[in-house]
């Protein structure tokens, strides 16, 4: 079996417009009910005074930690970390005890009331294994979610920053 390559999911939150496209895409892909929401858009603000307001949207999902507390805590071995970094819960082994939910410092794992088992972001591992992008990334209208190999994503960040600088020059023309 060929070794799975690591990927990065970059959240460029400054672009998010709060459309919830990622949330709906995730629920359809994983056949989830209204709650839980493995990817969740949090609205921050508007904050400030008078006309000087700021508002942002922050899509949040599992960090797929290097040393995941949920994996260590899981009593049945359902919660696992793959060689490509994806942290997922094997639903055949999960007993819904929610120890992982207590252990996770970010409050990521939640119980799926429809199955009585944990539902958390599994990095769309089945899609990724087939060479497809995760469902949330593909549907995001604003390219807030950026997915790919680490080198390619880093290059993308660099280009985007360069474009921002280029933009300030166009403004001053």
């Amino acid at each position: 079996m060929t070794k799975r390559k690591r990927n990065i999911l970059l959240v460029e939150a400054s672009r998010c417009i709060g459309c919830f496209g990622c949330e709906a895409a995730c629920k359809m892909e994983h056949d989830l009910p209204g709650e839980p929401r493995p990817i969740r858009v949090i609205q921050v603000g508007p904050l400030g005074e008078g006309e000087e307001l700021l508002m942002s949207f922050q899509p949040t999902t599992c960090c797929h930690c290097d040393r995941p507390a949920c994996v260590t805590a899981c009593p049945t071995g359902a919660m696992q970390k793959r060689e490509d970094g994806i942290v997922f819960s094997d639903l055949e082994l999960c007993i819904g005890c929610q120890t992982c939910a207590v252990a996770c410092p970010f409050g990521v794992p939640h119980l799926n009331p429809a199955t009585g088992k944990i539902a958390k972001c599994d990095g769309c591992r089945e899609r990724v294994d087939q060479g497809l992008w995760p469902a949330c990334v593909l549907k995001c209208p604003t390219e807030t979610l950026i997915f790919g190999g680490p080198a390619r994503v880093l290059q993308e960040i660099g280009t985007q920053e360069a474009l921002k600088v280029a933009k300030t020059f166009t403004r001053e023309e």
Partner: protein
Amino acid sequence: MLDHHPIKRFPGSRQEQDYQVRTVCQECAVGCGLVAHVKDGRIVDIQGEEEHPISRGRLCARGTAFVQGLTLPERLTQPASRQDRRQALQPLDGWKSGLDLLAERLRHLKERHGPNALLIGCDLEGGLDFYLGAMRFAQLWGTSQVFYPLGEPLEPWPSGLNSPAASCSDWIHSRCLFLVEADLAASHPVACSWVQEAQRRGARVVAADARFTGALAKADETLRIKPEQGNLLGLALMKLILAEGGQDAAAVGAGFTETSQWQASFEQLSLEGVEAALGVPLERLQHLARLLAQRGPVTVITGRELADLPHHHIWLTLATAMGWVGRPGGGWYPVDAGAPPLKIHTYTGEANTRPEGGHREIPPKLAEVKSRADQPVRAIICSGNCLYDYLSPFGRLTEQVDLIAHFGSFPNATWEQASMTFPAALWAERDGLSFSNDRSIQWGTKIVEPPDGCRSGLDFWMVLARRFGWEAHFPWAGEDSRADQAAFYSWLMAQSPLTAKLQVDQLRSLEPGSQIFWPVGKTVLPNARSPYKGKIVPHPAPAALAPGAETAETADYPLAFEAVQISCRSGDASRFWPWTRGLSREDAVQINPETADLLGIENGDDVLVETPRGRLAGRACLSRAVSRWLVASPHGVSGLKALVHKTDQSLDEARHLLKKLSL
């Protein structure tokens, strides 16, 4: 500009499937391309159409969540009726007996109260075919009261310019995008991605709205105006630009039928009172006017509500006078106005076959119908949840109405009032034509069959018309006597010179990635507004900008109310999707923290919003998105004066407390 190669996308579905259907999302008018994956007659996955020029594979929450609406257990699938609206609806034995009963009741009401006692309300989910079928039925019946949430389509514009603005993908050529009361982030997320794309390429984004919306949050410059004053802002900007000679003299000469009187009207216009009417200092307006004059080409994107308010055409005038129209990245882009004028108000039928009393009137305004005391409305046929959204003035009059027939898919508030109900097919279950905001004409192929008992809007009217012997006026029956949607839309396109050269088959066989826009082919446009080819009649300035001074109403209702669009809601069905239902509360009443503090209101309190036209109950949601003088909620009608108070607080107490508020 830097050469940027985005990361290659890897689209597709992992679900097992029998076949795919390529179609167009009809949750809003952006017109995104969809690929539906179907297994055993059910949708198992929805992906965006990667080759689609508008959406490029992207979809918003609505474009995914609609799938849930098709299979929800709450879905209505059987016609039902009741004599007394206090009792439960009883299922009927199919459509035949349902429509027999409806026809009998309608006949009875017509004999007693005349044809104008019938009012028809059409929502967007009922489909264009329900609306057009309603128009024809109403003309045969003799009532002019047919309502649709979209205003009249724009008049055809001068030849030589295909439209006042190009597609949203053209915004990347713009140096400035000016959004007026258009919260694309909530209402049209995929189109909003083009705003961001343009912004990344150096376009300055300026957004004006009453609330601090998602669009304002992403804009480079923001302007908070009073609700529904967008067109007034347009007039003020035109005045300021003309005063400094910022217009494009050549474009004015080439674009307008007449210029001296038009310019004189703006010279005479006084800006006195405009600061109070808009809630914006004059210096800010001046700054904005100069910015727009310097940063052409500008695309002005205006919200749907502005179309129903006076002076809407100031935007075409402004865009033409500045020379933006016709330039890449410039022009006027009114949202939700992408359908061509469809010649539906002038149906006369075949010679000598038109029944007595048929009407050719333009529908009256809603307010006029309400005030016709001599001709009260006794019967309502409506689709979706009309009585509780844009027809809400009638929602409270239902006691006086003898018959309410509901055509819809879900047990909503209108259904609760209905004396009869007919289950509707949703857009994914019927073929149909879709006009995008960009004026792109797309064929929406049905993805799955509707549940037994659910029918299209055209079917409803066609079969009802048969009960009155009007088959000849609905000649679109297929072999199974159901409505043939393709035949209907072929007929429809043939009616207008703007679309006559197009066949439904051409649309069906269109390759992914290509689009057809109206006007189709080289068409000589009938220029209804002007006898001069290639020119428009410029919108003149009114005698005074600001409306009258303080009224008694202002004293009683010191705040303003605005209806809010929620980003994960598009219509009635969206209220029932579990995937998006929990994302946003529909009863949230947004109140500024300072106003709430004065009134002693805390987050989550039960509150009442009082307006001169009725009361709205909800839960307080403290937010700086609304200014001190504004309250906002997804329900209700924009533009009203309002007062908000806690349920255990009297109106006078709230009024007294609000006197301390510096508006």
